[in-house]
């Protein structure tokens, strides 16, 4: 495949310079196998060093470079140029979190929501001298939600979150789910109580944007539905994978 000339449109905002966000365009030669992240860095290194973005691992595991790529939330390091439908690449910061500079948003509100759901194992029983036992089925029960990398693609794609930044958002619920359905955990009641709050799971309107945005392909909406179900029935089944119908 040959090189492509891309027009990269970046929504710029440098607080020391710009009073309001503005669009800026760059032309760049890109290899179809390049990642969008490579293209942004090429522009940054060769044309305008002031472009602000976060990145680290460059292969979709650290969660640094969530951004809106052609209107949808993606990790810039997981989108290849060859997958772009046209030669125009539009980049914006993710929505719903305050912009600090260019593609960088303030992640503090996001992490505060995450911390609010008690995202850690709660079990005060004295542990055995070796491992606690857990069957492969019990382990599989919450496998999907252990994969979250806290990139915020889901939360920042969620219309109820855009409208109400006090809503804990899908990522926090995913991380609550990871513990609620872990057979070793004893904190489900406490977490469910938190998520039963007006800013908890009931804000979710099952728009499914979150599931579509997740770069780890976590079934986010299903996880939220399972938490809602647990609240409605008062039961948490940590043994078998239930398949809640995803339609609303």
């Amino acid at each position: 495949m040959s090189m492509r000339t891309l027009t990269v449109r970046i929504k710029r905002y440098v607080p020391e310079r710009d009073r309001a966000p503005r669009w800026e365009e760059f032309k760049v030669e890109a290899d179809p196998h390049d990642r969008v992240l490579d293209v942004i860095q090429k522009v940054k290194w060769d044309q305008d060093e002031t472009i602000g973005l976060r990145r680290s691992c460059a292969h979709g595991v650290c969660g640094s470079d969530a951004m809106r790529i052609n209107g949808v939330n993606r990790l810039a390091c997981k989108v290849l140029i060859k997958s772009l439908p046209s030669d125009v690449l539009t980049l914006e910061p993710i929505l719903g979190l305050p912009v600090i500079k260019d593609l960088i948003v303030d992640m503090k509100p996001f992490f505060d929501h995450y911390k609010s759901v008690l995202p850690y194992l709660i079990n005060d029983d004295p542990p055995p001298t070796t491992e606690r036992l857990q069957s492969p089925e019990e382990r599989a029960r919450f496998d999907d939600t252990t994969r979250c990398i806290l990139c915020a693609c889901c939360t920042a794609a969620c219309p109820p979150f855009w409208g109400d930044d006090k809503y804990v958002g899908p990522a926090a619920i995913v991380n609550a789910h990871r513990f609620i359905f872990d057979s070793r955990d004893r904190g489900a009641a406490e977490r469910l109580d938190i998520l039963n709050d007006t800013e908890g799971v009931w804000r979710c309107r099952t728009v499914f944007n979150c599931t579509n945005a997740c770069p780890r392909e976590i079934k986010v909406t299903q996880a939220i539905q399972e938490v809602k179900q647990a609240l409605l029935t008062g039961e948490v089944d940590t043994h078998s994978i239930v398949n809640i119908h995803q339609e609303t």
Partner: protein
Amino acid sequence: MNYHRFDCIIVGSGGAGLMAALEASKLAGTAVVSKLYPTRSHTGAAQGGIAAALANLEDDTWENHAYDTIKGGDFLVDQTAAEVLCREAVECIYDLEHMGLPFDRTPDGRISQRRFGGHTKPNPVYDPAAPAGTEAAKPRIPVKRACHSADRTGHMILQTLYQQCIKQGVTFFDEFHMLDLIMVEGECRGIVAIEIATSELHVFHAKSVLLATGGFGRMFKVSSNAFALTGDGPAIAYRHGIPLEDMEFYQFHPTGIYRLGILLSEACRGDGGVMFNGEGERFMEKYAPNLKDLASRDVCSRSIYQEVRAGRGVGGKDYVYLDIRAETINKYKTSPTGEPVDSAWVSKRLPDIIDFARTYLGVDPIHEPMPIQPTAHYAMGGLPTDVHGRVLRDESGAFIAGLYSAGESACVSVHGANRLGTNSLVDLVVFGRRTGREMARFALDRPFQSLPPKPEAYVKAEIEAVLARPRVEPWVKIRDEMQRTMMDECGVFRTADTLTKARDVLVDLQNRYRSTGVQDKGTVFNTGLLEVLELGCLLDLAQATVASALARKESRGAHSREDFPTRDDSQFFRHTFIFKDGEYPGRIGYKDVDVILRQVDGRMEPKYPLEIRKY
């Protein structure tokens, strides 16, 4: 000036930093300073597993693990440290499980374990008289020792440790980038860091400072390491006259994604994957007749280079294939269970690997082999420490009060000349925990020592100088030349010629580095400025690597000198210590390898006698 005071300051929030933070904060005031949000640290990229002789699936002992670690490191491993690592690994894994780490499970609910390169146990049916090639002819056989959580073990470790830090209320300074150590009268009394969002400088006054800043693979062109892995901790310490140990030992992992360097875990081969050259030959049979594809990493990487040099790369190019298709595993009878496997099993064991190959190679490994080449992966060298994480002042073994290191930035040395897969993650938890304890103990025993006036002055001047300099040339050109030079001249194979060339290129790059500046003069997230400062760290470490490699005139583990192709225990059974002298690498000293002796028939004999390393 922003001033903070904590008993213990931990720089870095990967596995090593977080483990130390959990321990230290139980006893003493502790804060973690990290240039990345903790969950972005590269520990989260670790895939295949964490070693501990739990013996959940077959017989195993920590002594087997210690032997493998010492042999894997080509005997440059400090043996007491290796025994500490392998013994404490077991309780550390149970600790992680109790913290909630979701390990994969065996049918009876225990922690599941898989095979990994170089992890073995004595063959119960070994018979020295057995004909070559038969099962009985193998003195040692692979063992399932790597505890895992699919192929995202590091992600689970990092998440679990961070979760525990939240539970325990550990203080974090996220997106604070350390730029200097505060050294007074040979002691460490704190650090200077820049707040990335504002460019404000912060002075952290401390009694104990831990450098847990991870590796520096970004020195090389093709690397599995994150952009952030620029060796800031070791480089900054080195500038203060603190030595670096065994820098010539840098590990190239055999199976990186062609061109990109993204890692395809050794678990691929542990679970039965096989490497092929362009002629479809399983070439590891030639180089490591017993363990074949499960030989240790340096051996496999050299084998790939040799195949490519002989024109047997795929299509004559510089890559070979890694094949994890179920049909291949079954054909070569490499399944870890001994039973045939199917595609569903492979998908369940290696989901992320399959996703990486599909995303970045456009290859579906369930149906096709993956193009791979060796990728710069792991620094065996780093800041010399003892088994409590205390940084050594020199080869005599004296300590620097208040300064600690753990994780990839440290050299304990449990990895010697070549690290075994799954031994880094266990190093992080075992020595992270020990170091955290020691830091707190030291801090509780001692008052705060005074700081010099304006401890941030040096950093301030350095930043102002970079900002004031014109951009004579783009600094990325300097970085690219460094990475290419290190890959080509100081990579898997080296000679005096290639190393001398690298040394000269690096001198030129240092000069150019000191005369060029950055375009961005702003104060909000000036990542260009920080990247330049990171490049400065990499250049210093590259020079230390090349100088140490030039001085070691033998081949051992990952350091392969074609002009000195054999191991020379008479001269080089010892660790390299390199010191900085002004702007350049200076004095090189050596420290003996720590050897455990035991009494045999009234005589003292080495517990791990030197042997030729064969797989």
